[in-house]
């Protein structure tokens, strides 16, 4: 087979895999590495359910080739909690009932984490535009925005 050998770091672990040239990062994560937290909602970059970070940049993993992550650092939803303790965003999504079916949740969490790391104190509008690349069909976004606002406050260390 014409597999390409790729060495990368995923959620802090060194990982090596073989993939075909046309295989997307999403397919590699899900089908080759068993990291199924990234979801395929569209495969065309329109829904954000497959969001991950590559070298600190938020991407739709359905639009990135697996071979492209050679030598890069990949972060997925599976690496968001540290051990037993959830990330404040994960806590707040649960507390605010910011998910119904939950299929969009990994993508939203990755996008929100990326947003808050770039902008720790976003306005409601900045949150809404920051998350506009992620589709949620269940919640109407209200509780998602509130969860992100609340998590931002916790992450800044402001008194609640």
């Amino acid at each position: 087979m014409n597999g390409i050998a790729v060495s990368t770091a995923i959620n802090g672990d060194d990982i090596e895999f073989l993939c075909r040239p046309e295989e997307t990062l999403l397919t590699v994560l899900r089908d080759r590495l068993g990291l199924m937290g990234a979801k395929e909602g569209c495969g065309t970059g329109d829904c954000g359910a497959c969001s991950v970070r590559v070298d600190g940049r938020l991407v739709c993993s359905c639009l990135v080739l697996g071979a492209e992550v050679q030598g890069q650092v990949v972060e997925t939803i599976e690496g968001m909690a540290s051990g037993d303790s959830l990330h404040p965003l994960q806590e707040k999504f649960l507390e605010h009932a910011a998910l119904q079916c939950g299929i969009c949740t990994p993508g939203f969490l990755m996008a929100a984490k990326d947003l808050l790391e770039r902008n720790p104190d976003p306005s409601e509008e900045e949150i809404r535009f920051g998350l506009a690349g992620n589709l949620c069909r269940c919640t109407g976004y209200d509780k998602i925005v509130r969860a992100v606002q609340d998590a931002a406050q916790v992450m800044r260390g402001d008194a609640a």
Partner: protein
Amino acid sequence: MNINAKTQIQEFRSVGTRPVRQDGVDKVTGRARYGADYNMPGQLVGLVLRSPHAHARIKSIDTSAAEALKGVKAVITAADLPDHADGDEGLLEILDNCMARTKARYDGHAVAAVAAIDEATARKALGLIRVDYEVLPHVTDVDEALKSTANVVHEHATSRVDPEQNVPLNVHATEEFGHGDIEAGFAKSDLIVERSFKAEQSHQGYIEPHACVASVNADGTGDLWVTTQGHFSYRIVCAQLLGMDVSKLRVTSSEIGGGFGGKTHVWAEPVALALSRKAGRPVKLTMSREEVFRSTGPTSPASIDVKIGVSNEGVITSAYAHLRYGCGPYSGVWGMLGAMTAFACYDIENVKTIGIDVRINRPKTAAYRAPSAPVAAFAVESVLDEIAQKLDMDPLELRFRNAVKNGSRSSYGPTFGTIGLVEVLEAVKSHPQLNVPLAANQGRGIACGYWFNIGGQTCTTLNIGVDGTATLTIGTVDVGGSRSSMSLVAAEELGIDYDKVKTVIGDTATLGHNDTTEGSRGTFSSSMATINAVKQAIGVLRERAAKMWEIPVDDVVWEKGCARAVGEEHGNLPTLSLAEIAKEAPNTGGPIAGHSEIVAEGVGVSFGAHICDVEVDPETGATKILRYLVVQDAGRAIHPAYVEGQYQGGAVQGIGWALNEEYVYGADGRLQNAGFLDYRIPVCSDLPMIDTVIVEVPNPGHPYGVRGVGETPIVPPLAAVANAISRATGVRMTHVPMSPPRVLAALENAKVT
């Protein structure tokens, strides 16, 4: 739960609280397994070949080249899915939709499928299948299809024939509802408004595409892992279509990434099973987003005429609606549901509705959250808004004057029991949003909505663990957090803490039949069965306590999660906790459990009212939602955060439909926007916060007063947004979605005329 002796009001300790959901951690860490997140050993990849034509006779299919390709393990066509329907026309239609038998009836209709060792091979094999089509004339518009000259979409099952020309029509069914004499009613009215409306077709738009893994063994047994709203129904239909014994097919519902009615029907599952049967290996079949749009159930496009007459005081004297719904190539109930719900919010002396299902060359219509009701409400509530304008009356006051109350005869027949529309309107009236002043180009719209809700077959099991915790197994698929609601109910009834109960969804081999999670029945029905199952378990717990104490069971009561001995003789014994009784179970009679198998009755209908504030840009026709309020009667909110979530989510789906979402068909009958880029659902930046008020008028048919809440929220938005835009622009909107070009055209048109 206690009844307050003074007020006679139920007091709850768990129900009505907002704990973290029990399946939550898996879902925020990426561990929850949805349809596509499961694999079986040796599984193949299945792919489906779909018709590029809206209507075509399949003259022949040559699969030989695909079969010869290395790595291809099975290729199937309709010939591999023989007719086991035994004359059941409905079942045959489902089979025909899963795999076209003689004709492709819409763009995207499945005609063949392959299973191969990997996706690349399967895709290559699809390209090698040769289908010889004879392209036929098609019709995708509801009103066009109704003309008797239009092409007939489905010749055999057509149930209406033109009496003059004796030719089949595309009308599948006509249903009529009402009472009184509408002509006499119109003659009495001081003002009559009559208008026609059109609603384009929208899709449920669940973010998770259909996906399943099917495994059929040589001995006739099978397993199906699938994202579905109803694994029991899927089992029955799949087994029937494949000629299998129902009990030999075990169906497990995965976590489900949204359904909204779209995952109540089988599409790819029988195909996956047939592929697996032929290949002798498990097959995973996942739809692409394009396949979801082209081939799975959108809701009906519709065309509606409404005529309402009122007195000068704003009392409706007569009302009439003629509602035409597209049902795809197969039969539907959509006209009936539209005709039943159109005037359900109002107490009307003379009322008549006619609902028609029209066959068209579009995908088979599936339910979409309160199916048919949103567009019926769009038409009716728009006319009411215009009447309010013409009478110079507050539109809310107009609704008060006509609202149905306890004992009102509904427009579709039955008499309402305890209902909450007036309470909903009261809550709207006192809401601060009504007092926010509006600026130029801004408008406020109000609309009401109704949905029946349903009950149905339900089955649950409660097992007490050795440590006094409980596992509740339910069979209604949890689409939006209902497992947590069930844990709250079980905790309430048992008198223990929420975190001591874990609710899981049983597969089809674990529980008796459960109807599909649809019709807002999940929480209503399963909570009823849960309460029964807990009561039965409490009976066993009392017996075991009696045994431990060696006293008659009649002297044991259950209170606050403990057995307590009563009466003069034993009343001073210390209580026995659930944990203490559970620990002794091996010595007192074995496992402790409770079951319930019911047909849930006593359904409580649900009413809602929405207020929408918009600003319309007169240059572009673009609409911005400024504020949005949902008020709805929940009967009793078990987990209020998730009830609010249903209100908000339904409202936003309705807003999307009102402003953007539509299927666009070309003259060639092909769907032109089968993707999220061109079929635009609302994103975060399109919206404000969605305000909610939960009104609670308990449903007397349920032990806690629960009403279904999932569907009513999508009923008012089309009308609420349309009324807001109409008031902002001074031009009555009659066609959804009210996308910028359509609004602009309406404004231009109004200038000309």
